[in-house]
């Protein structure tokens, strides 16, 4: 454990913050720009994982395990979310025969 923490601390904390912010921004842009539901799921995962990495980095720098525990919770929730998302995708595909979210246009004013 000590060596892992030491290895994490070789890289300055700012680098982690900048890297995670970049990952998060890529995820946000992916969700907003892409029309394919699967790619949107992947972008959401990228957002969640950037938060995971940031929490792990903070946790190592502060020698406080709470952040790493949180990462486990996020992983569990992300897995559940993907299971539900793919199930919904299958249901939508059955009725529209496409996974393009522009096909979801039945409800509007």
């Amino acid at each position: 454990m000590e060596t892992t923490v030491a290895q994490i601390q070789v890289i300055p904390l700012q680098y982690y913050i900048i890297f995670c912010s970049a990952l998060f921004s890529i995820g946000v842009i992916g969700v907003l720009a892409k029309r394919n539901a699967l790619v949107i799921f992947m972008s959401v995962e990228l957002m969640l994982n950037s938060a995971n990495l940031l929490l792990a980095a903070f946790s190592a720098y502060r020698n406080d395990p709470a952040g790493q525990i949180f990462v486990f919770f996020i992983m569990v929730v992300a897995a559940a979310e993907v299971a539900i998302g793919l199930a919904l995708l299958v249901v939508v595909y059955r009725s529209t025969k496409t996974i393009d979210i522009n096909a979801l246009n039945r409800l509007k004013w």
Partner: protein
Amino acid sequence: MYAIITISIVAIIVLFLGAIQKKTPLLPIIFVGLPVAFIINLLGWNQSIHYYNEMYIADNFSIAFNAVLIFTTLLVFIFAPVYYKPVKRPLEDIYALILFALIGALTMTGFGNILMLFVGIETMSLSLYILAGSKKFDPNSNEAAMKYFLTGSFASGFLLFGIALIYGACGSMNLETIKEFVVAHHNNIPAMLNIGLLLVAIGMTFKIGAAPFHFWAPDVYEGSPTLITTFMATVGKVAAIAAFFRLMSSSFSDMESSWVVTLTIFAIATILIGNLSAFYQDNVKRMFAYSGIAHAGYMLIAIIALKQQAAGVLLLYSISYTIATITAFAVLILVREETGTFSINAFKGLAKHNPTEAFAMTIAMLSLAGIPPLVGFAAKYNLFIAAIEQGHLPLVIVAIVGSMISVYYYIRPVVAMYFNLPSATSAIDSSSNYKKQIFLAAFLMIVLGLIPGVIINLI
């Protein structure tokens, strides 16, 4: 805490009974289990117990809101047999998911650590995603579920990244420790904390359904099965707003300068967008979605005007919104059963055949619009007074203008019911269950409107 455990056990029993094809005992078990949980919840009054290293705090705030949430869920379950009459299968999955969503909502009102906030929000949201799509072969329901899922998980991403930044700045996810950090660094709040708080606020406004992140709400509310929409519009919204209030008041009340302006803009936009869009809706279900957005804006005022008694005002407002919305949806479900449409024309001449339902709908609409002496007026009045005392006069003026606009669209169904000739439909037969619920709700709306102080001074 023990209320959450009770409801979890009830939900698992329901799921198990469904798996072995027992249909009849499902609802009786829920009707016993939820009142028991309600009483267990109230037993902790005035004790303020902290569970599991401050993960969950059962103080009066959370107990009062939990009571509202459990009671609302009970009312939703009262319509379930009527709404699902044509369905022949046991429906254990839907009942259990509603209960699981309720568990998430109860966790959200009493969290003492941001970890629990996240777990509660996700427990509630994941259940609601499935429930929104529970009409499996209806394309509208599928679409609503997909849209809800995509926007909801996107919002969770924002919430999580914000939590990570707050953790990085404060070194803890415990609300008390964060508050200590904020007080200690009163003059130089790190930029990381400000950005994190902004991201968390964005995530929470998504869940509340407040502008500028409200766009999912009308589509999702319209496409979901009506019973689920009722649950979403009441329990989902109240739990999210209570969680947001708790987060802001217990941790960030000492750095108001960095978030009050943002939230004020959100609230003004929410009130205007909600009320002005509801103006044009012909579909009553969609109109309620926009009305829910507008009410989320009013409830944001309570967060902006944070003071100790604002919690009581928020509680009163939540109760008034919940009871009125649930009554209106009950009548809407009845009308939909008979006419097959959610259009406002379906209400024409309802008063002639069904005076009880028409009266209940009228009371609910007037309460939502804020006409005295109903509880909606008392709630709005106290909320606006609290905000003016804190010096948020422009916000209150916008809120009052929004309220005046809202009278128009709330009166439209009432006019259709009383002053238009009935369409070809005959009287709608309503089972006795419905009548009891409607009377109870109308009674509560009038009585609470006369004695609002009791609720406000409760917490």
